[in-house]
């Protein structure tokens, strides 16, 4: 399958191009937008929000909490040594270790999930280094028989560089 894309240098024109692709029947999930900066304020970038990542962080924190609580308690009970008049399982000092492991769990879960889902899973199989010069790429990864329609739509939007099929 040959992807097709065009390069733009103005987010307003990109918005028009994305809207035009939708109008000719291209689904949102098929439209690929790549840029060297996030465009949070623009509607074309409002897909693929990652709000679920907060739940992953919370779950990681819970795992860290459980690991910290088990670690401190189990090791203190394994060798019950009285220290400074404190109980064998000393909740106040343990709380410090448990807190640190909770936060560590949340952070590692967040970054681990980011790496797996955003990098290792693999994205579109095409790229243009001109993106790093500030251009915004709009394309379709698998256009099928709609290549001509998509190319025409992108051209009509007024790209800086006309649509190119990728080999």
């Amino acid at each position: 399958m040959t992807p097709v894309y065009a390069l733009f240098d103005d987010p307003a024109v990109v918005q028009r191009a994305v809207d035009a692709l939708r109008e000719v029947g291209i689904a949102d999930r098929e439209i690929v937008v790549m840029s060297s900066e996030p465009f949070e304020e623009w509607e074309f970038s409002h897909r693929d929000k990652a709000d679920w990542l907060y739940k992953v962080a919370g779950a990681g924190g819970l795992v860290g909490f459980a690991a910290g609580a088990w670690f401190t308690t189990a090791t203190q009970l394994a060798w019950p040594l009285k220290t400074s008049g404190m109980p064998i399982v000393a909740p106040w000092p343990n709380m410090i270790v448990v807190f640190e492991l909770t936060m560590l769990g949340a952070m590692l879960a967040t970054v681990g999930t980011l790496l797996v889902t955003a990098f290792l899973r693999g994205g579109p199989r095409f790229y243009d280094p001109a993106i790093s010069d500030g251009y915004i790429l709009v394309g379709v990864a698998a256009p099928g028989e709609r290549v001509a329609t998509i190319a025409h739509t992108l051209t009509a939007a007024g790209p800086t560089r006309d649509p190119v099929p990728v080999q």
Partner: protein
Amino acid sequence: MSRTRNNPLADDLLRPLLHTGVWFYAAVAALGSVVACGLAAWGYQLWHGMGVAGVNWPVFWGFHETNFVFWIGISHAGTLISAILRLVNARWRRPVTRCAEVITVFALMIGAIFPIVHLGKPWLFYWVAPYPSARDLWVNFRSPLVWDFFAINTYLTGSLLFLALPMIPDFALVRDRSTGWRRRIYGTLALGWQGTTMQWHRLEAAMQIMAIAIIPVAVSVHTIVSFDFSMANVPMWHSTIFGPYFVAGAIFSGIAALIIAMAVLRRQLKLHAYLHDVHFDNLAKLLLLMSLLWGYFVTAERLTVWYGNEPHEMAVFWATQRGQFAPLYWTMVTCNFIVPVTILSFRRLRTVPGAVVASLGVLVGMWLERFLIIVPSLSNKQLPYSWGQYAPQPVELVIMGATFAAMALLYTLFAKFVPIISIWEMKVGNQPHPDAVTASEDEMSELWKVRP
């Protein structure tokens, strides 16, 4: 501003990476020599034993612990300030965040070395790590030194990730603009970054979560470092104020370090177009605020001790107010309070050089503060038979000097190989807002209507 190749932003910020000046080699050679001297001094201390350092009964903690607390304090600048500014979405943060986050990572690394330097047998440092020994004994979780291990490692891990994540899109930019070995290295570091909307959303969500998580961790780290002292029944240490007092002092010295680092970067890398006077002005106001807060904490601490009039605490109190430590104490007050408040309260003096002078004073003052917390209390314990003196020895002075050189060396190398200002975040700051574009298009339409 044009968004594409003609935009000088990326060219300016990538220049140090792609072109190497003579000053870089000179700086690395000079700083590297000092670091080598420090390593040699440490080797000397290892060979001859801790006796060559000035620490002895009853003052077992001297310069090495002072430097430990000082550098952990410096580390507070970056990640904490950056995280707070990210969460409140302060627009002026963009050129500042990475400069700040780097300070945290390197200062933490340097600070964490000192407990090991202080050990008589540093090759046994792993004993503080939680692992079952041959006798199935675990570390004592009731010891503040073990809390240090967990807190510093959590903060270092979090700070490294917080620094590294937003560097990925910039690595991709360098990858696309370079060739040969540079392209291969930066390509690997970019982890295949393409800049899809999905990648941007996940990166930003992860950064938001990291910012939320790292703030309490940063506060906990210096609170726990303060527990190394306040959990001990030593005069003027066993105090409930120590946690917030240490955190405030850490942020104070951290901001001072950040101002100095930014001033040096601006001058050496010619970043005047990105590190504006307003950035220094904002940080100088923060420094002024922290100076006042520091004064408040010191007054509260000293007044409480003086009013309580406990004999063993008063011995330490008077040693610092008008005894052998008084010159250092009043230098500290001058550097931490009088100089910054005098300079930074007046707009005319709150310039970049003014902020740098005040910051240098604060660094000196905060180092003295750490010293004055540790040494006078250990020199004047409860029973007079355990009173003693401490004088730093050359080996301690050389190691201390080497850590400052190590910080400068690491910072120089980082600025050489990584864009010291986040390029993509700067671009976001220059983006047109959709409403503004729509408005201007409507205005243009109206204009065309009335034209013939």
